[in-house]
């Protein structure tokens, strides 16, 4: 009995040390970013490494915000991110519902084709999609960055949602149908409320992707007042020089909303991630 207890203790010690080690490894870049953001420029690249700024230079944050239209870009980024999340949640879940709960000819084939689009390297699609958007007259507008989210929301999201919807018992839906509920009502009042974890996961993935998207805004937006934070951060990197401390201060401010969102929705997010990795 005692040896069993001892074994459990040892196992836990090993487990916790491994986990601590990994969390330290993952936290180092974040720590480095924040530490650099508070350093004067002379302390950024010193050998041996200076881990803590001496003294912390809070002014960097003011300078970083002043160096480019931070608040304008923050607003643009938030606006795009919210629209992307709303659009993806709505359209991807509708498509996934159709792929999982409605019966129609060629459904599975079309699902596989949808999945297959994930194998196309994104670089190959850059010029064709640019051409489509330019023919539509959408260059230098937010439309190329928003409309796709409302048109299916991407194969990966559809796949995630479909896999979850499949696990919802058909009996529930049958019962609703007998009661005379329309398909849209079943989707919105039965399936969606049961799928909160996966919807959270999709929201987080979409939010992260949209928030950090650099190439899309860079290509499609020609008017600097429309740019996003990811594009704005580049102004700290010139051909020959980079102001690392200001870049890191601006990066910290850019990452901050995501970190706050993570802490607020921590539980739902971790359960959602567990679900997306469980291979249901």
């Amino acid at each position, binding site marked *: 009995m005692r040896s069993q207890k001892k074994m459990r203790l040892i196992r836990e010690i090993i487990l916790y040390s491994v986990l601590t080690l990994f969390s330290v490894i993952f936290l180092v870049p974040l720590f480095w970013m924040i530490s650099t953001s508070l350093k004067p*420029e002379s302390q*950024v*690249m010193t*050998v041996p490494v200076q881990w803590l700024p001496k003294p912390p230079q809070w002014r960097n944050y003011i300078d970083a915000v002043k160096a480019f239209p931070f608040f304008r870009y923050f607003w643009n980024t938030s606006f795009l991110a919210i629209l992307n999340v709303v659009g993806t949640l709505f359209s991807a879940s509708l498509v996934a519902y159709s792929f999982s709960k409605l019966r129609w000819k060629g459904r599975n084939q079309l699902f596989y084709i949808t999945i297959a689009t994930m194998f196309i390297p994104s670089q190959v699609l*850059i*010029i064709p999609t*640019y*051409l489509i958007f*330019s023919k539509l007259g959408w*260059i230098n507008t937010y439309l190329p960055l928003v409309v796709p989210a409302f048109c299916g929301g991407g194969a990966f999201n559809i796949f995630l949602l479909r896999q979850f919807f499949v696990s919802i018992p058909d009996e529930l839906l049958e019962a609703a149908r007998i009661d005379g509920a329309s398909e849209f009502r079943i989707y919105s009042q039965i399936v969606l409320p049961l799928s909160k974890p996966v919807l959270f996961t999709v929201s987080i993935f979409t939010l992260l992707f949209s928030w950090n998207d650099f*190439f899309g805004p*860079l*290509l499609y937006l*020609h*008017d*600097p007042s429309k740019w996003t934070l990811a*594009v704005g951060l*580049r*102004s700290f*990197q*010139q*051909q*020959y*020089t*980079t102001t690392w401390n200001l870049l890191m201060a601006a990066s910290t401010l850019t990452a901050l909303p995501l970190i706050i969102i993570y802490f607020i929705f921590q539980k739902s997010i971790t359960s959602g991630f567990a679900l997306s990795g469980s291979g249901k």
Partner: protein
Amino acid sequence: MKLARSFLIALFILVLTTISFAAPVVIKFWHVYDAGIAKQTIDQVVTDFNKSHEGKIRVEALGISFWDYWDKLRISIAAGQEPDVFVNDLGDVIMRASSGILLDLAPYLKKAGTDVDKTFFKAPLDMCRWKGGIYALPFETDVRLLFYNKDLFVKAGLDPNRPPKTWNELWQYADKITKKNAQGDYDVLGFNPLYAQSYFWMYVWGNGGDFIDEKGNLVVNSSIVVKSLTEWKQMVDRLGLDKLQKFNATYPLGLNDAFINGKLGMVIQNNTFFSQLRDYAPNLNYGVVQIPYPVKPVSWSNGFSIEASSRSRNKDAAAEFIIYLTSKTPSYLFAKNVSSLVGNREAAMSPDLMSNELWKLSVQTLDISRFRPFVLEYPLWYEDLQKTVETVLYGKSTPQKALDDLQKMIETQIQKYRLTH
């Protein structure tokens, strides 16, 4: 009734023409000057142009970070959506000119009465010529120079006012400056042929060699190139490739640059390097001279061109803006504010700029400086040359064999290009 109708039509045409005349032609101009004094200067030049062309032409400028500019421009060109005027790489103007996307500026220059040979430096301007046309104008160019640390010279017992002139002197001086630590690593290095802007092709030129033969073909395995690579390997071997690499890793360029930190006696750098020295090492006591040479003096140049799209709807206005941008006054302003060597010779030779020693030296060096020859069938030949040099430095092949192999590959690639174009 009929009269009233004709009157109305006439009025309509009049209004239409007034509107179309009143609305200025809009020229979109993309460039890489997205921050700091360079951006302010370009903005000022554009504002001046717009003011003097009010009601006729309005230039809308967009500066994008140097690191992202090329992707954005390339994709917009591929999609046929490029701006009317754009900054581009002076090294491969011919590639774009041959594909038909660039506007030939020669007729516009003639009309404007610009004598290009008098206005621009020869070497950068030559990079813009193709089949009798001028497909770009050189806006910015540069040269490579030797920066040397005077304090390290004094410490090594050398005369700080007598920098090396020949490659032999360079090594004599370097050996006196070099210091090793207890582990055998370089604490201070006199000269490092694999650091900063020191490239093998410059050494070949310095040896009196060339990569283009009399028939205009790209030849990388001529006896002079093989000899140069053999010497190059000897220089590296004498210092130890692994030790040099360790040194390079310890001092990445930028704030931790070996020269900036007083760990390198002499370095080949771009003429704009002085601005980094001013910002990062204001107290460093250094001198600048032309690069020492084995046989003949030489330097390497590249830069930015200004080009107009042949698909622009407003070609006249686009050409007018390019000619203005590269003319004396705006070029002088850019040179003065940004301290970058402009392609406009008249602007660069302004007496107040020439009173600066480094500026004068850069301008003089342009006379001996060369661009990498552009080979339409194989534009990135120099990258493969660099790889071949590395193969030899790592001892995986001999100079003769490695360069023969490269020559074979080049010929195959050129043949392939000719079959498909």
